[in-house]
């Protein structure tokens, strides 16, 4: 019994424990010479040790991923003891799949940070405990089956990320952090308000119970429909903030651009993945009533509008950016749009949940890889930011250019990369759900998207740097390189032989009634 719980929750527990230990290691470890102030005093014990701490954090997260895999193979349904944690944490295959993705994305980001923080001499080794704590929150969020757990997990995840954004302490970074914090808290408040209304209407806080109560509406003793609808809108808006869907995306470009790149990578992959996971669970379990999943009176048209707006606006705006990092930020909004198509498709297609999970996995490896390649293209004081910085980088650093191209092609959805299968699966689910218009809009959008991804490749391979321009000097870092190798292998593996993963994603459902 206890063993089941401990084994089942082991990814969560290991990461939490790792975070605590890493915190101690950061505070009490032997400081590097670089971390010493000129007088010889210890100015910051964690300074100059970003590399090794990053390695530690990455190892913890990869162990978390491996344990998720172990739990998956053992089958969460076979671990009877996990019933104990219900309804607070619902530890099903859906959760475990998401946990794997989260740990993977977090681990890659930590590896990137190991190289990035050292290179840019950002003496903030708190980065790693923060990422780990945030990942714990994200995993709990993906598992949350109850409104209070959901809120606590959401805040655990978000608080860490707010700090990560402001880590660099430049005005830009601080502004981004403040913006993100304010809007994020606002979104959380909306969610909380929605949750309160739901509790008021149904008297339940567990999602399944809420779902049952809603099903009873109109059959005598049910709660007021108006209240439920208002709650639904508030919850959807709160979650839309977290996945940064248009028109709740205003914070995204600034926060993504201002944050140190590994933190951006973490935000783009882990926060979004967890938010999508909880969105699927809330919508399907709490608001899964057939009246709420119909086009006439429920959330599908709202989410479809969000999806179309996210894809279209983000893709059009992304093409006009001059900063690659900002372009990637908009691209992540567009990808949220594609994933939202799959969320809408859940109403009629049983394959849609799997498609979201698989999409998030492919998105995680491609995006983390793309940010990593961007990191690799720059070095201290000569960071690669704009397209011009990347001009001709294919000659100066062929490997970085090639890796960057691979990840961009995957984001654009060109076969045989992971991104292609992700998109294919999503659109297949959409066609399965007879969402033809959404599918065509999505496909046309991926065409627009391909344009600006291609633009980066064009700059890297086909443009010469302007004479006299300050060139971005590629950095050398084993951490970043190893993260890129892992991501590249996964992008290709998921692109050529995705079969097992696809089958696994297909059976990872939230178990709606």
């Amino acid at each position: 019994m206890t063993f089941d719980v401990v084994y089942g929750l082991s990814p969560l527990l290991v990461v939490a424990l790792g975070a605590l230990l890493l915190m101690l290691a950061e505070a009490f470890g032997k400081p590097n010479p670089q971390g010493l102030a000129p007088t010889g005093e210890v100015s910051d014990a964690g300074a100059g040790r970003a590399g090794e701490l990053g390695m530690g954090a990455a190892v913890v997260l990869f162990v978390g991923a491996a344990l998720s895999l172990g739990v998956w193979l053992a089958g969460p349904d076979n671990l009877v003891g996990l019933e104990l944690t219900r309804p607070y944490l619902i530890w099903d295959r859906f959760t475990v799949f998401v946990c794997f993705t989260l740990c993977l994305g977090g681990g890659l980001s930590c590896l990137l940070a190991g190289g990035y923080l050292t290179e840019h001499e950002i003496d903030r080794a708190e980065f790693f405990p923060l990422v780990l704590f945030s990942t714990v929150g994200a995993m709990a969020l993906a598992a949350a089956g109850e409104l209070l757990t959901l809120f606590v997990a959401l805040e655990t995840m978000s608080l860490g990320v707010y700090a990560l954004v402001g880590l660099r302490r430049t005005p830009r970074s601080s502004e981004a952090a403040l913006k993100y914090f304010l809007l994020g808290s606002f979104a959380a408040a909306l969610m909380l308000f929605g949750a309160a209304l739901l509790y008021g209407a149904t008297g339940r806080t567990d999602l399944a119970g809420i779902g049952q109560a809603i099903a009873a509406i109109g059959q005598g003793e049910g709660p007021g429909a108006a209240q439920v609808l208002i709650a639904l809108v508030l919850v959807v808006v709160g979650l839309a903030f977290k996945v940064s869907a248009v028109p709740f995306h205003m914070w995204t470009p600034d926060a993504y651009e201002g944050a140190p790149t590994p933190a951006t990578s973490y935000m783009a992959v882990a926060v979004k993945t967890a938010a999508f996971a909880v969105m699927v669970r809330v919508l399907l379990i709490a608001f899964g009533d057939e009246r709420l999943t119909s086009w006439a009176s429920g959330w599908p048209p709202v989410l479809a509008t969000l999806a179309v707006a996210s894809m279209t606006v983000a893709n059009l705006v992304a093409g006009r950016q001059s900063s690659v990092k900002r372009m990637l930020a908009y691209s992540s909004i567009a990808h949220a749009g594609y994933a939202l198509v799959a969320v809408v498709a859940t109403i009629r297609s049983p394959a849609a949940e799997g498609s979201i999970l698989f999409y998030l996995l492919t998105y995680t490896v491609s995006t983390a890889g793309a940010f990593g390649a961007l990191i690799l293209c720059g070095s201290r004081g000569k960071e690669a930011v704009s397209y011009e910085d990347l001009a001709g980088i294919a000659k100066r650093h062929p490997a970085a250019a090639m890796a960057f191209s691979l990840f961009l092609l995957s984001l654009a959805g060109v076969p045989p990369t992971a991104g292609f299968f992700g998109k294919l699966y999503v659109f297949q689910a959409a066609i399965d759900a007879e969402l033809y218009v959404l599918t065509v809009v999505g496909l046309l959008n991926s065409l627009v998207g391909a344009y600006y991804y291609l633009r980066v490749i064009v700059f890297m391979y086909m443009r010469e740097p302007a004479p006299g321009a300050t060139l971005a000097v590629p950095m050398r870092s084993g951490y970043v390189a190893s993260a890129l190798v892992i991501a590249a292998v996964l992008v290709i593996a998921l692109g050529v032989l995705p079969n097992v993963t696809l089958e696994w994603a297909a059976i990872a459902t939230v178990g709606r009634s």
Partner: protein
Amino acid sequence: MSPATKAVFELVPYLLAFGVGALIPRRQGTLERVAIGVVAALSLALVRGLWPAAADAATPAVAPPEEWPHLLNVIVFVPILGALFVLFLPRQTPALLRRVTMGVLGLDLLASLMLLRVPMSRGWHFQYVVDWLPSFGIRYHVAIDGVSLWMVLLSTVTTPIAAYVSFGSIKKRTKELCFSILLLHGAMLGAFVSLDLFLFYVFWELMLVPMIILIGVWGGVEKIKAAYKFFLYTMAGSVLMLAAILYLVWTHKSLAGYATFDYLALANVVLPRTAAWLCFGAFALAFVIKVPMFPLHTWLPDAHVQAPTGGSIILAAVLLKLGTYGYIRFCMGLFGGPAWSAAANLAGLAVGGGILYGALVAWRQDDIKRLVAYSSVAHMGFVMLGLFSGTRPGVEGAILQMVNHGISTGALFLLVGVIYDRRHTREVREFGGLAKVMPVYAAVFVLVTMSSIGVPGTNGFVGEFMIIMGTFVSLPLGSHGGLQAVLAAFGVILAAVYMLAVVQKMFFGPLTNPKNAQLSDLNVRETIALAPLVALIFIIGLFPSLFLERTRDSVQVVLERYTEGRKSFQEMDPSSTVARLLPRRGGALETGYPEPPGQVDAKPPDPSTPEAEAALDPQQGQP
């Protein structure tokens, strides 16, 4: 005679050809001699493979030789693996990179010649099927028939030539060049042999990136614009095609109970009218952009003018063929009904917008390469016309014309590249009287021009003649057929006008421009590259039956499918919204048909039930 001695005897003619080829040119280095010898031996192999009598003599006529199932895998994956291998070679050794690339391409050519050993009877040959993604119903399914056979051979013959030419003129970033050419080659071959729509789409998209690199890295002044244009046009077509593929697969799944992307299975799906038209439109758009047909041709002149010579050759010779090949295989095979109904209008477009408009625009060009590019639009108009005619001579002629166009336009681009390398300009008025300083060049140019405008005795004549003949008697074109044939014939005359005009201006008359006085004639590399193309011009021109015999049965099959598709489409009640599944044909045409996984849920649903009707109504469920 023991097998060993027999093998030695079989090798003798090749050795002879090698020896003759190597001995003829005097005052050349050993390497060039060897190269010429190898080309001679390969040409002999090609000819011997083509000749049915030679093939019969080599193998007893009792049974067709065993088909080695992995042959297509070898042909497709040797270049792709070669591309990956090139990635790991040091970039400081361009010579090694070039040699490896040529070696891989040569190996591929040899392997593809093996395809000729088997007579192309009805059905699929060299079929190889293996599950790839069973949960999606995606299989790795490759096979060839008489149509794709020539496309494969065309690629394996022209790509080495393009690569060889590129190596002569491009000296920078050899590694990327080798990688792109090999990957492009593999992807094109893969697209020609795939019988799984998903696999086809993967290869189709895979071609995009290397081609963009070819245009964008080694192209002319406006290379980046041209690369974007190429990319966006192609991508725009293919995303809609993907939507149509997914819709088709989903319909098949709801009818037959299991998902499959297989061509053989999807060909049995009869979609309701609206859906069929939309899906046909999506497929046709993708292919028509690639062909390209007026008014979607505008990317082609830019791409051609900006691309380096090698890129232009591959683009003209093979890449455009994917459009026409896709139209035969998928538009006519999967959506016979809409294709048949649209044929008359599209044929009008092919004649007016392709043949005549392309010819007239070509006439007005000052840039030779642009002229050849527009002539390519006109030639592809012929091919499309042949396909739209839907008659046996028309389609056979179209397939032959695809090969012809690859050979003659490829050769023309090569020749334009030759003069461009020497003078760095392609303006017609810069030249004049070149025949005096470059006699061999002029002779070859005139010869290729003859082939391009279809003078009897060259390959172009046979193809164009058959297409016009087929258009006259065409059923789908109805009463327009005659008029269109006449206009197409007029297009041939126009082609003669603009091509001969440019030949006259460039090669004859007085040598006006002093810059041209010192030009050197064709060098060894260029001669080696041109020789096989010139040889093929005559082989096809004089012995077209070598080619037509191998396509005959497959064209028959294509037309059967086409007619059948049209029949089932027209039988359908126009207001019906229910898709149907045709019964299995069985026989050689459906070897490798995807069987349902387990027999549990394989029962066909009753189309009369309201659920099935609701499920297939494309009007429902739209936001």
